Every structure is written in C-alpha cells, then in structure tokens.
C-alpha cells in the first residue's frame, strides 16, 4: 500500500535539441488527486503523454505499484490502468461519435464485426449520465460537426467510460462552459471514493485548489514544487506558478 500507483524517477524527454522534461520525479498514490500546474511549455502535456505510452521517455525509470515497468505503447499504459483525456482530445473528426468512443476497444463478435447498436446506446448513455453536455442527440453525428465543448465532452466520456485506476486529464475543461466545468470538477473530486486516482492539468488555480490533494508545479521541464493542500493556499500557489 505504500508504493505509489505510478511513479517516475529522473525522467527525461528530448525533442531534438529541446529537453522538454529534465529529470522529473513524479508520483501519484491511490485515491489521490494531483494537480499539475505550470506555464505554457512547462512540460505538463509531455509528462501526460509519457505516462500514456504515446511519447516514451528518453531516459529515466517508471514504476507501477512499486514494480519497474516500461510504458512504450498505449497498450502498456492501458494494462497499468491509465486512461487519458489528451489536451488535443485525440478524436477523429471524420468518424462518428460512437466510433471515436470505442476506437481501439471496439465491442465485436467472434469474427471481429462490430456490435454497433450496443456501442451506440452505451455512447448515448455515457454522454447523458456522466459529464453530460447538451446538444448531442445522436451517437451517429460526426465528431467534426460538434462544437469545441461537445468534442471535449466526447473525449471526457471516453476516458470516463473506460476509467480504471488512474485518470490523466490534460486541461479537460478548456472548452467547457461554466456549468459543464463545475460538473466535471464535481465528478473528478468524487473519483476518490471510486478507487480512481487522477492527475489534473489546468491553468485555473482555483479549480485545482478546490478539488486536488497535492500540487506539482513545473517550470521549463523540471518539477519546482510538490506540496500538499494543507501546506499551501491559493495565493501561495499562484505565486509559485508566476515566479517559477
């Protein structure tokens, strides 16, 4: 129980000459919601994609529940129990909502043919129950025809539907209205009771302070602060992000 769910040790990520992550030690424990804060270009999304397996580290080590692991593919991160809402949402505009929802994890029969009716109804269920967003009235709509917020809702619904032990949320409220944002924040803070931990990337420190247990501030690819809620305040955090 003492080993964190997921941990990075001295992780570095290079893009050519640019070091987007420089020796980052990061961890997340069971039933914990961690905020990941920092300026534009600090390396937050790079860390999220690294943990999701689509952007493997250049060097450094990863541990899941105390055991050394590699996360070099999406498959490996899925096996560890990671679900992600990517900053760019990772949806295919030319495909219907239900196809996006189940992309890579299609419900299918023994021959590999799709169980379409089932996937469509599950999609509509998820869209209207979890973090429901108005205006989507059919799972057959192309994602490219949705509004920015509706599109984000599809990405959220997908991660929420397949949620296991760890949910990574990279600016999931960037396109949402106030009402929808509040619903999502509410949902995230309720995750603790459901056995899911979360990493919440946001630029809104008030939102982060409201729902998170711990705050990690990044700057220029390094971790500069790692502090629990009891040890800090919104004002302190704001100063940390601004001065980092």
């Amino acid at each position, binding site marked *: 129980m003492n080993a964190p769910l997921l941990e990075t040790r001295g992780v570095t990520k290079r893009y050519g000459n640019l070091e987007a992550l420089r020796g980052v030690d990061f961890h997340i424990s069971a039933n914990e919601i961690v905020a990941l804060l920092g300026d534009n270009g600090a390396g937050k999304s790079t860390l999220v994609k690294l943990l999701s397996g689509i952007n493997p580290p250049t060097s450094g080590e990863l541990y899941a529940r105390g055991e050394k692991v590699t996360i070099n593919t999406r498959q490996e991160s899925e096996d560890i129990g990671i679900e992600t809402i990517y900053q760019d949402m*990772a*949806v295919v505009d*030319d495909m219907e909502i239900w*196809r996006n929802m189940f*992309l*890579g994890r299609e419900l299918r029969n023994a021959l590999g043919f799709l169980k379409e009716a089932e996937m469509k109804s599950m999609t509509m269920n998820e869209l209207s129950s979890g973090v429901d967003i*108005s205006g989507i009235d059919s799972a057959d709509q192309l994602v490219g025809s949705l509004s920015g917020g509706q599109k984000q809702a599809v990405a959220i619904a997908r991660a929420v539907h397949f949620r296991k032990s760890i949910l990574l949320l990279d600016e999931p409220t960037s396109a949402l209205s106030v009402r929808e944002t509040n619903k999502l924040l509410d949902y995230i803070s309720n995750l603790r009771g459901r056995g899911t931990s979360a990493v919440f990337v946001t630029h809104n420190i008030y939102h982060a302070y409201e729902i998170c247990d711990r705050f990690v501030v990044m700057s220029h690819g390094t971790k500069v602060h790692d502090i629990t809620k009891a040890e800090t305040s919104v004002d302190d955090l704001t100063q940390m992000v601004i001065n980092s």
Partner: protein
Amino acid sequence: MADTNGNAQAVAPSRITTRGGLRGLLDKLLATSAGNIIVAFVLIQLACIIAGLIWSEQFRYLSPSNISIMLKAIPTLGIIALGVGFLMIAGEFDLSVGSIYAFTAVVCSMLIAAGLSAWLAAPLMIVVGAAISMSNGLIAMRFLLPSFIVSLGAMLFWKGMIFFVHGAQAIRFSGSESFKEAFAGSLGPIQMPFVWFFVLTVLFHFTLRHHRFGNHVFAVGGNAPAATANGVRPMQVKLICFALAGACAALSGIISAARVGSVTPAQGGGLELQAIAAAVIGGVALTGGRGSMIGVFLGSALIYTIQDVLLLMRAPGFYLDIFVGALIVFAAIANQLVGRGAGK
C-alpha cells in the same frame, strides 16, 4: 451521477430541421460519402438508357453485346481500384499497382508454362503482389517518405523487372480449363470477372464499415496521432492495406490474363492513375479518412460508361482523357465540399 445543478438539462428543442419528401431523401443521400457518385451515376445511366431507347439504331447502348463488353471491361480497373481506394482511405498511395498487375500476370504465365498448376501459381503471385506493395509501404514508413514517391520508384522498378525476367514479347496464359472457368467463365449471364469484382466490393464494404479493422483504417487515415493515442497501430494497419492493394492488382492481372489468354508485358501502364481517378470520383478523399467501396465500385463503372458512350458515338480516343480528366477535378471539388460540410 453527482449533478450539483439538479435540474440542469438543457436539450434545446430540435434545432435540426430536416426537409421532407424527395428533397429530404436527396439531402440524406448527399451527406453520405458515396452520395455524390450515386446521384451522378444514376443520372448518367438514366440519360444513356433514354438515349439508347430513343436512338436505338445509332446509339446501341442497350444492345446485349455492348452490355457484355462493359461488364467484361469494368472489373480489370475496378478490382485494382478497390485495393487502391482502401489504401487511400488509410492515407497512403501505391502507384506501382499497374506494374504489379503486369508483372504478376507475366510471371504467373511463365510458371504455368513451366508446368506449375494455375491453381498454385495464381495464389502464389497474389501473395507476391501483396509483398511488393507491402515493401513499398515498409520503405515509405521506415524512412518517413511519402508513399507516393516510393511507389513511383516501384512502378518503374517492377515495370523494368518484367522485361528483365521475360523480355518484351507477349506470353500465352495456358491455365487449366477449370481455372479459366472460375476466373474468366460466366455464372449464368454474368461473366466471372464481374462476379469477382462484385463479391470483393461487398466483402471490402463490410470490412470497412462493419469490422474492427475498417474502423482502424478510417481512424489511421483520418487522424493517425489520434489513432495511436487510442491504441491503434498505424503502421500495422497501413501495411495490411498495402498488402490488399497489391493483392488486388495481382488478382486483376491474373483474371485478365485468363480472360484474354495472353499477357503483353507493356499492359497495365496508366492503370494506377485510373484507379486513383476511380477512387476519387467515387468519393475517396485524397487526404485519407473518407470514402466508401460502393463509391469506388461506381467510380470504376462510371469511367467505363463514359468510355463506352464515347466509343458508341465514335468519338476519337482523346475525348476520353478530356472527359475523365475534367471529371476527376469535379469529383475532387465535390469531395472537398462534402468534407467541409462535415466540419473540416
């Protein structure tokens, strides 16, 4: 789930208006990826049939011999176009399909002449066709090159290889009667090449629209990074599509060899561009991620309909280029407009 706002459910009373009647039906049809081509195809067929009825002496469109010629001619291009269209939806090209078409037919004829059964030689050469196309894909993806360029090289390479292994003279295709019956005979009134074309269209259609693999093909062609982020492997999916394109080209070459009874090494030139044309006319997006097999089927048929009409009207051959050339551009514009409608 936890809903702080209690009531908050603001589904706007239908902001979507649908037109009724024939207009509504047309709207719905045009919104599908094969919509444009279905409408165009039906209109052109209607025009031809009406003209054929009115001027039945001069314009012999409906004569049994004309229909039989068309049904024979369409599958050669059509089967290649199915594979090429499938690959284009995955976001890649293979310009070497015309050379694969000729190379595999020539080598197949040589193997049969050397004593191998056609029933063994044909599947073997279909695998070879798949392998050639896959090697194009492998090189393109391994070195991060556009497949357009790699397969352009392969087109010349394999065209040259035909002359290297066989020379320039035509070769007889002497497969067994049962083989010829299966690939060039007829099933009732319909010739076997057309039966194969039709069966492949149906098979590919269901794979693309209703099978997990087809779902991945659309995702990889539409947005490869998003596909990767969801655990789909673009490289793997694309390689299978390359294999399909090569296999289709080889099958088409073998079918036409069986039908004609001989192969000329120079045949197949230009088929790669016609196949892309058929796919584009059929609604496949040049950028990948959009298209349908029904569209490719009709696109191939449309190219031959136009060719046939021009022949019946005794128009000089270059008219075909003019018509098909203009049609490709129109079709590309129409595809683009459909794409915008979907929010691109």
